[in-house]
C-alpha cells in the first residue's frame, strides 16, 4: 500500500508542472502589455523598459517560466491589483472559506446521496425507488444559481428563517456561521447529491445481485449486514469516483453559488478578478483550484485502492 501511495504521488508531479505551464502561458496569451496596467498608458518608454528588465519580461519564455516556477515555490503568486495585496494572501483567506463550503457540501451530498441510493437499491422497483429516480431528475435539471435564488426567496425573504448573504452577522459565533452556511451548502450540494445517489443505487444493485452476496445470504448473514458490510464496500469504488468528480464540479460551482450568496471565497474573488481583469489573481485562483483538483484525484485513487485490494497489485 505504501509503495502504491508513493508511486501515485510521484505521478502527480508532471500534472502539477503542466498546470503551472498552463497558467504561465495564460499570462502570455492574454492581449495587452503588462506595463500598461502597472504604469498606466502615459508612462515613458524608458520607464517601461526599466520595468520590463526588472520583471524579467525581456528574457526568453523558458527563463521566464523558470522564474515563475521559482516564485511559486517561494509562495510568490504576484500582486493583486483589485485587493492591493499579494495574491497568495488573498487566496489563503478565501481558500479556507471555499474549502469550508465545499467540504460541507460534499459531506452533505455524499452522506445524503449514499443513504438515498442505498435506501432505494434495497427495494428495486418499489415506490421509494421510483421516487428517488424522480428526485434525482428534478435536482439534476435545476441550475444551481436558480436553486440558490429560490432558496433565498423562500427561507430568507418569505419565511425569514435564515440569513442569505455573507458568512456572519451581528456577534458571529459558530451557530451564526452554520446558519449562514446552510443555504449555500444545500445549493452547492444538490446536483452532486443527485449524481451520488444515482451512482450508489446502480452500483449497489449490481453488487447485491452478485454471487458473493448470495454466498453471504446462504450462510445466514442478515440483510442489514449484507448491505452495509458486503455490498456497500464493493459498490464504493464507483461511488468514490463520482464523489471525486463532484468535488471538482463543486469547486467550479462555488463561483456561481458564492456569487449568489456573497460568500467570501475563491469563487467570489475569481468573479471579481475576472470583472476587473486582475490577471495575477485569476492565474493564482486557477492554479489553486487546479492543484486542489489534483489533490482530490490523488485522494480518490488512494481510497479506491483501499476498497479494492486488487488495485494495489497493478
Amino acid at each position, binding site marked *: 500500500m505504501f509503495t502504491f501511495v508513493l508511486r501515485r504521488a510521484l505521478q502527480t508531479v508532471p500534472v502539477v508542472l503542466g498546470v503551472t505551464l498552463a497558467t504561465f502561458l495564460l499570462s502570455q496569451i492574454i492581449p495587452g502589455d503588462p506595463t500598461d496596467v502597472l504604469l498606466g498608458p502615459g508612462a515613458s518608454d524608458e520607464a517601461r523598459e526599466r520595468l520590463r528588465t526588472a520583471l524579467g519580461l525581456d528574457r526568453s519564455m523558458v527563463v521566464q517560466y523558470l522564474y515563475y516556477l521559482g516564485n511559486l515555490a517561494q509562495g510568490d503568486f504576484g500582486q493583486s491589483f483589485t485587493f492591493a495585496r499579494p495574491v497568495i494572501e488573498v487566496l489563503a483567506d478565501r481558500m479556507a472559506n471555499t474549502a469550508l463550503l465545499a467540504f460541507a457540501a460534499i459531506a452533505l451530498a455524499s452522506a445524503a446521496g449514499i443513504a438515498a441510493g442505498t435506501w432505494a437499491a434495497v427495494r428495486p422497483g418499489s415506490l421509494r425507488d421510483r421516487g428517488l429516480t424522480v428526485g434525482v431528475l428534478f435536482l439534476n435539471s435545476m441550475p444551481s444559481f436558480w436553486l440558490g435564488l429560490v432558496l433565498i426567496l423562500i427561507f430568507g425573504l418569505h419565511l425569514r428563517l435564515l440569513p442569505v448573504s455573507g458568512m456572519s452577522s451581528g456577534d458571529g459565533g459558530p451557530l451564526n456561521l452554520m446558519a449562514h452556511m446552510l443555504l449555500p451548502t444545500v445549493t452547492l450540494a444538490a446536483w452532486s447529491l443527485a449524481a451520488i445517489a444515482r451512482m450508489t443505487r446502480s452500483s449497489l444493485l449490481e453488487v447485491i445481485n452478485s454471487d*458473493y452476496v448470495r454466498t453471504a445470504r*446462504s*450462510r445466514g448473514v442478515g440483510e442489514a449486514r449484507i448491505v452495509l*458490510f458486503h455490498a456497500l464496500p464493493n459498490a464504493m469504488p464507483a461511488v468514490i469516483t463520482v464523489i471525486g468528480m463532484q468535488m471538482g464540479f463543486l469547486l467550479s460551482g462555488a463561483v456561481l453559488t458564492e456569487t449568489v450568496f456573497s460568500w467570501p471565497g475563491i469563487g467570489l474573488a475569481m468573479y471579481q478578478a475576472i470583472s476587473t481583469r486582475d490577471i495575477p489573481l485569476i492565474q493564482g485562483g486557477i492554479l489553486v483550484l487546479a492543484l486542489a483538483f489534483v489533490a482530490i484525484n490523488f485522494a480518490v485513487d488512494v481510497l479506491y485502492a483501499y476498497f479494492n485490494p486488487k488495485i494495489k497489485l497493478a
Partner: protein
Amino acid sequence: MNAIPTRRSEPSRPVLEVENLRVSYGSAQRPIHVVNDVSFSVRPGEALGIVGESGCGKSQTMLAVLRLLSGSGRITAGRARFEGQDLAALSARQMRRIRGHGLALISQDALSALNPSMRIGAQMAEPLVRYDGMSRGDARKRCIELLEMVGIPGAATRLAAYPHELSGGMRQRVLIAMAISGNPKLLIADEPTTALDVTIQAQILRLIDRLRRELGMALVLITHDLGVVAGVSDTIAVMYAGRVVETAETDRLFETPRHPYTRALLDSIPKLDAPADRRLQPIAGLPPDPLRPLSGCPFHPRCSHAEPRCTDGLPALEAKEPGSGHLIRCVIDPWRAAAAGGRTSGLTGASRP
C-alpha cells in the same frame, strides 16, 4: 473431528423433501415456469445428484429451497420441507437460521462467490462471530481447523489473504470450508467443479465426498456432467426443461438408463475407452425455450426415438417396474426389454466398500 455414522442403516426422516415444486418468474398473469412438478427427498447422509443441461431448472430448484431466487422468482406450487418444516412458511429470521446451519451452498465460480474486498478469515468468521456467539479468538481457531479439513496447507497464513491471491482450486476449498462452518445437515453443491482444471475437479469432488461422510451431511450435487456424479451420488435425478425425466439409484441408472435423454447425456460424454476415431455423439439442437413450452414430451424434438404420440400430452413420471424406485417420464420406454432381462439387485441400496 469425530466421524458420525452416516449411512442409512435405518429408515429415517428425510432432511429435505421437495414435493411437486413449481418455480416461476414474471408476472402472476403471465408466469414463466422454470421448474415444474419436481419431487424428491434426501435422507440424512444421502447424496443426490441432479443432472441436466444449462437452463433445465436444476439450480433454480435448489435456490428455491434456499429461498435465494433472484428477481421475480418464486415458488408457485408445491412445497419444500427441511426436517419436516415447510421452508416457505418460515419467517425471514427462522430461514436465516436454517441457512448455514441446516442448508449450505457451494456455488460454481468460487472467484465470484467470495467477497473480493474481504480477507478470507473475515468472510469465514463472520457468521461464527455474529450469530454463533464465538469470540474472535475461537472463531479464528475454528477457521484454521476448517481450512485444514479442506486440505489447505499453511491455513493460518491464508486467513489474511484476499480471494484473488489464491488459486482456483484453493478458492473452491475456501468456499467449501465456509459452507461446512455451520455444520449443515445438507450441503448443496451447484456445479462445484465446472470452472476448474480436471486434476483439481477430481480432488474437489473427493473432498466433498469425504467431508460428507466425516460430517454426516446429506449432499445434493448439481451438474451437467453425468461423469461427475457417477462416483459420488447414491441417487440421481435427471432433469430436462424444468422437470425430472428419470430418477434411480446411481448404479442402476448407469447400468440401465431408460429415458432417451439420459442415454443421450451418457453418450455425449467423451470417453477414454471408446475408439478415438468414432465421432462424439452430442445431443442435437437446444432445450426448449421456457417462454414457449412444447406440448407433449419436451424432449421429443431432439429425441431419436420420438413417435407421433410423444406430442399427445406430458408423460407421467412413473415406475415401469413397480417397487424398483426407477422412475421415467417416457411413453415409449425403448429399453424396457433390456431392463426386464437385466439385473434387479440394485434396489437394496448402495453399500460401498
